[in-house]
């Protein structure tokens, strides 16, 4: 959309296939994540001493699992692959923005729209796999059938908001730095990049948490747990 949007920086073009910077940097982030994962899981150990990277990754995964368990009141390992990957991908791609020459792929509306669409379908898939088709779609008519259009519009608008929130935050951060580089170089862009890192991490957290909250609200079935019956 803008000059520095990664979609207009084209690396390769053959036939009708163009490789723009968004795709290349997405592949870079994917490769980076897989490489780190492979590096850490080569030699996993159970008792101390464990390597520092394993400790770090265990802390992150454990924190994500506890957050998901708090939100969904359910076994977190069902939702961990989806929410955890969202958080890791967005966080790493925002953090790597301080590497010179790297433009975060989440600063392109296409990437964030793709992630938001993934969340949209994930909500339906998790809901249907938990509750079955009929009771899942009956949810849209709560509390009355007249709420059906509002529920549908609400779903679509929150997907749009997910995409645009992440895109707007990251794109504006990088655009501010790029413009400040031409006005007051040396110190002020560094401060803005620090702010950009902070905002990037917060936005990654918000995206993953919102995805988990949407999934949790779709899969919440009012089950009576056996403990409640006894106590």
């Amino acid at each position, binding site marked *: *959309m803008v000059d520095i949007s990664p979609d207009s920086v084209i690396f390769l073009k053959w036939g009708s296939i163009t490789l723009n910077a968004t795709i290349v940097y997405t592949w870079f982030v994917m490769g980076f994540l897989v490489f780190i994962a492979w590096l850490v899981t080569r030699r996993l150990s159970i008792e101390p001493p464990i390597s520092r990277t394993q400790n770090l990754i265990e802390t992150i995964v454990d924190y994500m699992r506890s957050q998901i368990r*708090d*939100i969904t009141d359910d076994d977190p390992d069902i939702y961990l692959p989806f929410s955890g990957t969202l958080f890791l991908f967005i966080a790493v791609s925002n953090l790597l923005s301080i590497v010179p020459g790297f433009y975060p792929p989440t600063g392109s509306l296409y990437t964030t729209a793709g992630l938001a669409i993934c969340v949209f379908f994930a909500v339906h898939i998790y809901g249907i796999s938990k509750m079955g088709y009929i009771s899942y779609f009956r949810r849209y008519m709560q509390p009355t059938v007249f709420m059906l259009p509002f529920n549908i519009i609400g779903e679509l608008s929150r997907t749009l*908001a997910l995409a*645009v*929130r992440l895109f707007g935050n990251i794109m504006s951060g990088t655009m501010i730095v790029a413009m400040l580089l031409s006005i007051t170089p040396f110190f002020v862009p560094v401060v803005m990049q620090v702010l950009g890192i902070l905002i990037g991490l917060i936005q990654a*957290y*918000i995206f993953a*948490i919102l995805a988990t909250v949407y999934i949790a609200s779709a899969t919440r079935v009012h089950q009576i747990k056996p403990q409640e019956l006894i106590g």
Partner: protein
Amino acid sequence: MDSSMEMIAAVSIFTAGLTIAIGSIGPAIGESWALARALGAIAQQPDEANTITRTLFVGLAMVESTAIYCFVISIILIFANPFWNYAVAGG
């Protein structure tokens, strides 16, 4: 550039600036109020800080939706303006 194209450009830019300026006042005030309440709640119940923080983030995301809609309109007016594209195409 004839005068109708000038007018389209001028009004679009002016409206884009106005949209985002006015549209971000309300959500900013609302979010800061919600944040103040959340801080008060954390001060009263420090044990629940995690739940309160998470609920705060989710609530902020909801409140921010209106600001996001205004941002989208601004961006459309500046970068994907259908009236400007029509005028440039020689309509």
